[in-house]
């Protein structure tokens, strides 16, 4: 009945249509789910849109949400290109936050702002990179499945954070709440635009996206990564050192996730706490995939998914629509994207007649 036949070339219009239709269908599914909850989906979507882009302030908040998404997702793009599944960005993010907090708590008095912030950035990147190095080495040398190792490390990182927050790093004046003391001004990333919360992290993100784009497109390292990801046998035959590339790419990816963690606690939260936004680990994966593994596109996609998240956060309070709608919509979009991917390589026939 349903038959697939190999294509001779990838039609250009499909390459654009399929992602677009996936987005539309995903949003549709979200709307249907909302309907079951006896809320008018159009009202919800309108409210989300306004909550994301409706005023200058919420627009800036959308950017705020997009910053860590962008930083993490461009790192993921690098490793996904190599077919290495880093699901541990959240853990790397946490470790980056933890490492940079060390300096924030201990060196705020002794270092000038610029030096302190630089140390925090480096510490953040180192923390994330180290956390990524573990599963990378395990895969490179012992072939241990990276999906599970990176993922378990997420939970372990979270518990390390909890330990620090309930233990040695807890602010004695926080009434028992697991928070550190608020960072001194020295340890806070400067704002970029006054009257908003947009901080220097935005520059980090944009720079990172460009650097990753350059790496993938223009360097030998990026070339080797792409060859490994597309045909590992040919890569081996061409003499490419696969282990080295896995480790290097993961160190970069983890470093970027760690930097995102640092940026978030330094630029927005101004302290270390337990809730430093759990969705960012998975949402970043969705951004990476939806961007077609292109870090420049990721700037746009992280902006819009950030908007979805920011807008949904708004209506969570005002319309009692739970934040889960975001995951619902995002995963639905992904499902359609994944399912539709076959159409780029195969023609669809139904009962003998060609459909697509």
């Amino acid at each position: 009945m349903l038959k697939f036949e190999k294509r001779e070339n990838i039609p250009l219009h499909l390459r654009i249509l399929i992602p677009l239709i996936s987005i539309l269908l995903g949003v549709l599914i979200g709307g249907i789910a909302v309907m079951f909850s006896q809320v008018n989906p159009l009202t919800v979507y309108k409210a989300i849109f306004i909550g994301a882009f409706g005023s200058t302030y919420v627009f800036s908040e959308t950017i705020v949400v997009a910053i860590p998404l962008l930083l993490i997702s461009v790192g993921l793009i690098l490793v996904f290109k190599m077919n290495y599944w880093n699901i541990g960005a959240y853990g790397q993010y946490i470790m980056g936050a933890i490492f940079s907090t060390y300096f924030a708590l201990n060196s705020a008095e002794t270092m000038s702002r610029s030096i302190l912030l630089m140390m925090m950035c480096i510490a953040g990147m180192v923390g994330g990179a180290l956390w990524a190095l573990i599963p990378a080495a395990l895969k490179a040398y012992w072939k241990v499945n990276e999906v599970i190792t990176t993922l378990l490390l997420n939970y372990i990182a979270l518990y390390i954070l909890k330990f620090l927050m309930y233990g040695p790093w807890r602010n004695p004046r926080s009434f028992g709440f697991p928070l550190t003391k608020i960072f001194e001004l020295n340890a806070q990333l400067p704002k970029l635009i006054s009257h908003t919360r947009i901080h220097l992290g935005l520059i980090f993100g944009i720079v990172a996206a460009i650097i990753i784009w350059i790496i993938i497109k223009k360097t030998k390292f990026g070339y080797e990564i792409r060859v490994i990801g597309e045909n590992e046998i040919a890569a081996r035959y061409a003499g490419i050192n696969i282990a080295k590339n896995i480790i290097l790419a993961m160190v970069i990816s983890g470093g970027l996730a760690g930097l995102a963690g640092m940026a978030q606690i330094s630029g927005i939260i101004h302290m270390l706490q337990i809730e430093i936004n759990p969705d960012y680990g998975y949402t970043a994966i969705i951004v990476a995939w939806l961007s077609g593994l292109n870090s420049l596109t990721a700037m746009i996609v992280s902006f819009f998914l950030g908007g979805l998240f920011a807008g949904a956060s708004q209506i969570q309070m005002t319309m009692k629509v739970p934040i889960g709608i975001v995951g619902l919509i995002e995963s639905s979009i992904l499902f359609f994207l994944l399912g539709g991917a076959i159409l780029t390589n195969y023609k669809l026939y139904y009962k003998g007649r060609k459909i697509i």
Partner: protein
Amino acid sequence: MDAIVLQAKNISKHFPGVLANDHINFDLRKGEIHTLLGENGAGKTTLMNILDGIYYPDEGEIYLNGKRVDIRSPFEATKNGIGMIHQHFMLVDTLSVLENVVLGLESQGFYLDKKNISEKIAKISKKYNLDINPYAKIWQLSVGEQQRVEIIKTLFRGAKVLIMDEPTAVLTPQETDALFKILRRMIKEDKSIIFISHKLDEVMKISDRITVLRKGKLVGTVDKKEIKQKELAKMMVGREVLFRLDRNPMNRKGEILKIEDLETHNDKGIKILKGINFSIHGGEIFGLAGVSGNGQKELAEVIVGLRRAIAGKVYIKGEEVTNLCPKAITKEGTNYIPPDRLKVGLVPNLNTVENAILRRYDREPISRGIFLNYEEAAKYTRELIKQFNIMVPRENVPVKFLSGGNLQKLILAREIREEPALLIAVHPSRGLDVGATEFIRKKLLEERDQGVAILLISEDLEELLMISDRIGVIYEGEIEGIVDIDSADINEIGLMMAGVQKNPLDK
């Protein structure tokens, strides 16, 4: 004894670009062993796949015991009493023998009565001398034993006609003798067997009748008693050799490649090279003839560093390179045109430029520090495209959309441009059209004139005769003989390819 059990009338089958079977007539008598003989690409496997229901013929009919049958799937073939034993076994290695035997069997109930099944298998084993332990796992068995499992599978399903595709290709001489005993036993029990092979001495030993195919056409069907090996070889390879390309006289230079007593295993762990000795000089094309499966592919892989040699040595330009990694061997001035274009030689989803630079992306001018100079890369690629007349729709299209001929030209171009001292080309014109084929052969000759040593491994005897300076024949992992092209007799070569040794080893 004379009743015709199976008859294929006027069978034709097209594939894109090639007529695999051209109005073939074939019949099988009850209780006979009928061999289907021919070179690679002659159409034997296609014809058998039609009988087994894997392909459906464009023209022609099949009759079983006089009745017309329509076979649309292997399942239906089995229902009609036809059992095929493929060259690559359809066995699940983690399962046991009896589990493989009953896999997919309709009559098998939910519970696996292992005792019952193994008794049934034992009965078949005893009847046909197919010694096997029903509880052994497939991965534990030798190739010969695995083949027996395949035979048991067909007998278990009541097969009356057995088709065996190159069964002895993977067997030792002793295992082959054991197999022949089993086959003779089976025809006594009124089974009929179609035997596909290219090994003449075995064919002469086991067959009752022999049908020869060549390039999709039927050459003839003869009675074993009425023919000699030499005539069969002639039927197999044909008398005419197509036009000869204009070749300059050979300008032989120093020794570039030397192979000494080389031995290696194939992917299944069986020794496939049993002591190879030969050498190639600069400025000559050494053609290695032989039906595929005799070790050629593995020989090439050992030379370029993709496979471990277990004994023997490889020397390039006097330096020993045995078992070095591919990158090091490439540095010694060796380049490789692999038989599997899209799996090893290219990255299908990357574009032409990215594939073209696979050998030199880490050298100037394409490499510039940590960066890739794409302008230089594109320039280089355009040179390749021009020089080698490669048809590329757009530079940034993934190469998987290029035609086979153009893919091969791309690989050839890339490797030749590295200016190797030694070039190893395996089946370079396989599956290509006439134009691309001619182009590739011309280019190889050009390289030879420039002083490159070329090892040309090909199933196409014509091709080898056309451009080689010397031809060596590989058979069952050894060099049967080496002849100079000027004194080469095609029938002699055909005999060597089929295992009939005429000349003592010629260094």
